[in-house]
């Protein structure tokens, strides 16, 4: 029996504690913004804000995909390496195979995403926990990556249009990567919140057995969620290559930790305990501001990592203390 059973109709007005739990993380993001703005005027310049958004666009795309996997109750520990693989593939296909940009992009997306399908099949057919299946898929993706490029970066001049993914501006104003990230976030948001598939994925994540007994195709939901996660990672990896200007085998790796951090931070916002696309967006923004702000203040490079870790522990421990998040 739960002790917090409340049978009386609750008041319409949200009380302070509810507000704090739903919007605390957003509040923290605003606070970080204000602190950096006061510390350094440059932080709030239009140029810098645009800079931050461009910097976080790749993470936004990767994290949105990962959010769907976490919402379905699965982990995806292969996003970093899948992003890395898609990144070198798109470079190699353009430079070595002389494929057109769209074809190179599509083939890299298919390759990266198919690893998600494999993970999904391992999870749903062989009943391997996703934590393990995707942990194994990471090195497999990395191995394929090295097999393709011999472990060396792919240096070459890409077609101009490809660089536009990272540096172009629509109408000379809005940076293309921001636009791509916003579209991806929007699509994933609608998918999770407004579609039948999204509802089924969220239900599966909340209670696999109950969802199965409700007639939801839980296997398909988990397979699709892991596939979408790999799709997000692959898109992020391609954007990354466009930004770096080279296909670097190890470029995707750091994005695993960053995207997990973003999703967990996001789980403390809006709907505490649940992975939501909007929550993850807040998480990504917090990470982006911390990196950029500390940089501007001339903080030593290692401080970025320390602060990120501390912020994550603070946010999650607050949520755990309030009983809003339970892990496993």
């Amino acid at each position, binding site marked *: 029996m739960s002790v917090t059973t409340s049978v009386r109709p609750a008041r319409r007005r949200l009380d302070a504690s509810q507000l704090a739990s739903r919007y605390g993380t957003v509040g923290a993001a605003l606070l970080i913004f204000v602190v950096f703005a006061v510390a350094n005027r440059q932080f709030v310049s239009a140029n810098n804000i645009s800079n931050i958004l461009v910097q976080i666009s790749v993470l936004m795309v990767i994290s949105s995909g990962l959010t769907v996997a976490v919402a379905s109750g699965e982990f995806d520990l292969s996003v970093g390496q899948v992003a890395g693989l898609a990144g070198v593939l798109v470079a190699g296909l353009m430079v070595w195979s002389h494929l057109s940009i769209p074809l190179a992009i599509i083939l890299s997306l298919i390759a990266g995403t198919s690893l998600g399908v494999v993970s999904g099949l391992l999870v749903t057919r062989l009943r391997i926990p996703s934590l393990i299946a995707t942990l194994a898929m990471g090195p497999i993706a990395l191995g394929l990556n090295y097999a393709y490029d011999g472990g060396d970066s792919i240096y070459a001049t890409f077609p101009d249009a490809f660089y536009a993914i990272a540096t172009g501006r629509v109408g000379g104003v809005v940076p293309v990567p921001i636009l791509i990230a916003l579209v991806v976030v929007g699509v994933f948001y609608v998918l999770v919140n407004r579609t039948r598939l999204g509802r089924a994925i969220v239900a599966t994540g909340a209670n696999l057995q*109950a969802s199965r007994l409700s007639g939801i195709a839980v296997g398909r939901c988990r397979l699709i969620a892991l596939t979408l996660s790999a799709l997000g990672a692959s898109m992020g990896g391609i954007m990354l290559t466009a930004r770096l200007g080279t296909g670097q085998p190890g470029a995707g790796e750091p994005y695993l930790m960053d995207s997990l951090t973003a999703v967990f931070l996001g789980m403390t916002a809006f709907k505490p305990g649940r992975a939501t696309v909007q929550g993850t967006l807040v998480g990504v923004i917090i990470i982006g501001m911390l990196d950029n702000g500390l940089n501007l203040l001339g903080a030593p490079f290692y401080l970025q990592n320390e602060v990120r870790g501390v912020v994550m522990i603070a946010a999650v421990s607050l949520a755990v203390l309030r009983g809003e998040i339970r892990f496993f």
Partner: protein
Amino acid sequence: MNETLLQASGLGKRFTSTVALAGVDLEIRAGEMLALVGANGAGKSTLVKILCGAVLPDTGEIVMDGRPVEFRRVADAQAAGIAVAHQQVAIIGALNGAENIMLGREPRQFGLIDNAGLLAAARHLAGQFGIDLDLSRECDRLDLGELKILDILKALAGDPRILMLDEPTASMTLAESQRLFAFLADLRQRGLGIVFISHHMNEIFAHCDRIVVLKDGSKVHDGPVAAITLPEVVRLMVGRTVEETDWHSHAGAEDEDPVLSLRDVRVGSLHVEALSVRRGEVVGLAGVLGAGQTGLLECVAGASRAWGCGAARVGGLAHLPRSVAQAVAHDIYLVADDRLRKALLRGLSIEENVLAGSLGEISRLGFVQRGAALERVRAVIDRLGIKCSGPHQEVLHLSGGNQQKVVFGRWLARIDASSRPPLLLLDNPTEGVDIGAKAELYGLIREFARRGAAVLIASAEFSELIALCDRVYCIHNHRLDLCLPRQALSEDRLLLEVN
């Protein structure tokens, strides 16, 4: 009069927006079995949690041996001689009985666990209470009744003076619970103060000395069991009397094709010779716990496979459903037992829970039609009288009875939209639900039948089957062959047929 072991006065506890306990006095006496009853959300759990040190009260004090005591943590209460056996047995399957009993109190030699001493100590303890169990066996091979007794023995290892039992007989067979009560009677004889929490009124009237009734966080009655009747207790708990409504059958004509008919079906170790349910009929499945009721219902609902199947007609299907989705598409709905594990989408809202069974119906081109969805949920909330702040309230914040209504609501949302008579498969549908909500769920099941649903219901409470069913199939010795008509139903008869 027995010696007072513990005197609590004015215990109060608030959780953010809810008053869980509003100043309750409670006396626990040596050699007395005290029943603590109340509807879900009445404050029983909170009271027990305060007394065992798991929750700090906001107000009030606890006096033991003439001195005020304060339990800041569970260890404090244990040190004061208070032990609790929670509803879920806290027995670790991979350890043997002795290791479980002595968990945390293992005798040691040179800092290492003395296994021989451990077994001896556990056997001594069990022997003291006349318990004859093989304590060297791994616990995952024991049945629930044995586990419960081990769990209580484990509580007794700390040599407590007060033993609190939360729903000890939930999901126990009759033989198991009889054994438990014999054990408890012995403990009472030895001067232990026993606090017994149960939804099973017949157990309370058969075994307890005194009864305390809680309602909405306050104590509304405290007196000897002998001086009160069941209807009075029920009235105190729910604030009104539960009317035993006139029962009458809604079953369709005898010659009409049944909605469900099984012949020669094997599910697990259960063999079903013949079973049928007609439109408008409520048919029961009686058996001891684990006799295969759950397996049979899940098989008919498409959630598991039969081992062998002679002939089956289920809804419009000429075979057993191949998946839950196929079953649902043919208006075959399962209300699973164990709602927290198998029915509720924890952490999600009422809306998301109710709609989980009809995602296809509320979507167009893959997109959820939010207006229609919300309308559907509001209708379910109104129809079932679910007490909540709105469709977006989290389902775990509801009381047990309301949670179960949400589970029913998942299918109600479909049934109302369909013209075919559905087949409802109910597995212990009122488990852990208070008596008021139980009556409402009975009303709902009858209403389904009146409107043409075929209902197959398994219940651990035979009184439930008697209250609801046209006929009851009895499972005895892995076989389901006997079918008792309503006129032949009585708790004694059913117990006789299944044991």
